[in-house]
């Protein structure tokens, strides 16, 4: 592999990793608070992309307003899903909430098939200059890549700022350790949980829209696989930890691109890497890189 290929791969890895990281934040925050794998997370992402697409196609809005609307509506959808499906089951056995989350994922996908149709749609609603390619020696980089990387890093910094530099963020982190105590301290638990879902969903939708720009296609099942992989990224980083989700996301994205770059024969198995990493990790260090939870007490 030549050095220019390597640079190309690293950039692509960063790009994919950033997209995973944005989705993983929602997973890890929700799991941190509710101990729930929100299977519907990836499908909320998909809905956000459709919202943005139809805001342009049906309402002929400018692309950037459409993006904002798609992201905002995804936040609203995440909020609704939590209120309707998860909140009533908060005191139920954990396995029930997990099954409900799977049901919710299935529901959002089926609804998307009914509302938007099952056939993949092209996502060509962004301006053409994103497709322009810059050439640095042997390395060719699309404008889109810069855009995605830029947005990703700004959002990641914003999330970290929110979590570690604001009162709301402190409450979010406190609630993840202990719900009853935090509510005694005067924080409104329900509001914070809602806010977590809204932020997580909006980040996922942003990632989804950028995903759709890069692989210019939308279909009702597009959220499931990136969602699962982002969840795995969150587990790699140590579920419940936001910095962990970032590290896990980038690690996973890099691994997928670099391994295929080094061993092109394995390209067909690319989607399996995440699961292999996950299984190996669960065997040897189930708490991930940033250990957050200890074992249950007998």
């Amino acid at each position, binding site marked *: 592999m030549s050095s220019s290929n390597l640079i190309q791969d690293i950039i692509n890895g960063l790009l994919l990793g950033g997209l995973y990281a944005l989705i993983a934040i929602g997973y890890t925050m929700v799991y941190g608070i509710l*101990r729930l*794998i929100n299977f519907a997370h990836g499908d909320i992402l998909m809905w956000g992309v459709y919202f943005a697409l139809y805001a342009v196609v049906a309402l002929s809005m400018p692309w950037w307003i459409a993006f904002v609307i798609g992201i905002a509506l995804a936040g609203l959808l995440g909020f609704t899903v939590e209120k309707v*499906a998860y909140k*009533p*089951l908060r005191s*139920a056995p*954990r*396995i*029930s909430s*997990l*099954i*409900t989350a*799977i*049901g*919710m994922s*299935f*529901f959002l*996908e*089926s*609804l998307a*098939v*009914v509302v938007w*149709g*099952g056939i993949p749609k092209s996502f060509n609603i962004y301006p053409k200059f994103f497709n322009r390619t810059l050439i640095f020696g042997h390395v060719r980089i699309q404008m889109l890549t810069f855009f995605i990387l830029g947005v990703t890093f700004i959002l990641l910094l914003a999330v970290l700022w929110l979590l570690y530099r604001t009162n709301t963020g402190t409450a979010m982190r406190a609630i993840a350790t202990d719900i009853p105590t935090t509510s005694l301290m005067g924080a409104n638990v329900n509001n914070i949980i809602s806010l977590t879902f809204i932020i997580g969903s909006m980040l996922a939708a942003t990632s989804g829209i950028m995903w759709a720009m890069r692989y210019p296609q939308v279909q009702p*099942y597009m959220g*499931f696989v990136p969602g*699962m992989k982002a*969840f*795995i990224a969150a*587990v790699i980083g140590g579920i419940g930890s936001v910095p962990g989700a970032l590290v896990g996301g980038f690690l996973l994205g890099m691994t997928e691109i670099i391994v295929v770059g080094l061993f092109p024969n394995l390209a*067909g*198995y690319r*989607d*399996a890497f*995440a*699961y*292999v990493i*996950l*299984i190996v990790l*669960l*065997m040897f260090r*189930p708490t991930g890189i940033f250990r957050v939870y200890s074992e249950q007490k*007998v």
Partner: protein
Amino acid sequence: MKRISFKLNFVLTTLFVIGTGFFLLWVSNSFGGYWDRIITLMGIYGIMAVSYTLVNGVTGIFSLGHAGFIAIGAYTAALLTLPIQQKAMSFFIEPLIWPLNSIQMGFLPATIIGGLVAAFAAFLVGYPSLRVTGDYFAIATFGFAEIIRIVIQNSYNITNGSLGLKSIPPYTTIWWAWGWLLVTVIVIGSLKFSSYGRALRAMSEDTVAARAMGIDVFKHQLISFVVSGFFAGIGGALYAHWLTTIDPRPTSLGIMLTFFVLIMIVIGGLGSISGAVLGAIFFAFFAQWLRIVESPMNFFGINIPGIPGMSMLIFAIIFILIMLFRRKGIMGKDELSWQYIYNYFSKKAGDQD
């Protein structure tokens, strides 16, 4: 409360099985191909659901890998029954490896081998996965199922890769499907109502207490997982010879199938064998019935276009409503036994007094 004796139970159950047999005979003779196919599918779904509920309901560990074992059973059996010339024709990207390219056997041995291979896969998957618990186990098994699917997709010299297998002989009749369902119900029922079944149910409630009572939790979970894998493989073998075409897309033998079987056992009640069978019958029946919704209709002279995907949406809604408002489904963890029916009606009679 009167308890129904073992003898009476046995006689009634035998009569019920014979009665069901005659009913199936009548249906397949008088309604022709369409309903015959649907009722065969009910039997196949029943096998998948009963084997799934053994793990997810009775043992209380939540696997999302069922489709992986179904796929292994399906591919193994199909590769063993496909005529040799057919294999030579289908595998045009890479030829099928020896010895699969020179074997052709009957349906029964192929099905059993399909089950055994799936059981072995369940052992290989269960052994590492069962070291983690709860939702981690769910994700690990899902991961394994996806790995199985991706390997199938890429192994052109064994599974014909993404092209899939075509022209599988349509061996699965109503009798094969319901016969195997009977075997599945008897074996898993016998397991559930034995000392081992008590151990499994105890573990599903409290693993710490179960360990303190001398139960090797890991070993019992693994046993349950392997038995479940065996029957999932049988179900897969029958399914392949019912579909006659199989491929590794996620929507055919992937996570979608696991979803469907999950819906069946949630409807039936997690942990109930009879519930799983009822859930499977319900699912197969309504999935067909709801096709009406998806096809264009003429309603009092107004043309209503069909809505594709509507049936799955309705199932998703049923699924969520059950989880929110009736988490135990039709049967809960109980079984539809003669005792259950007797108690139900004597209670009803008692209410009227």
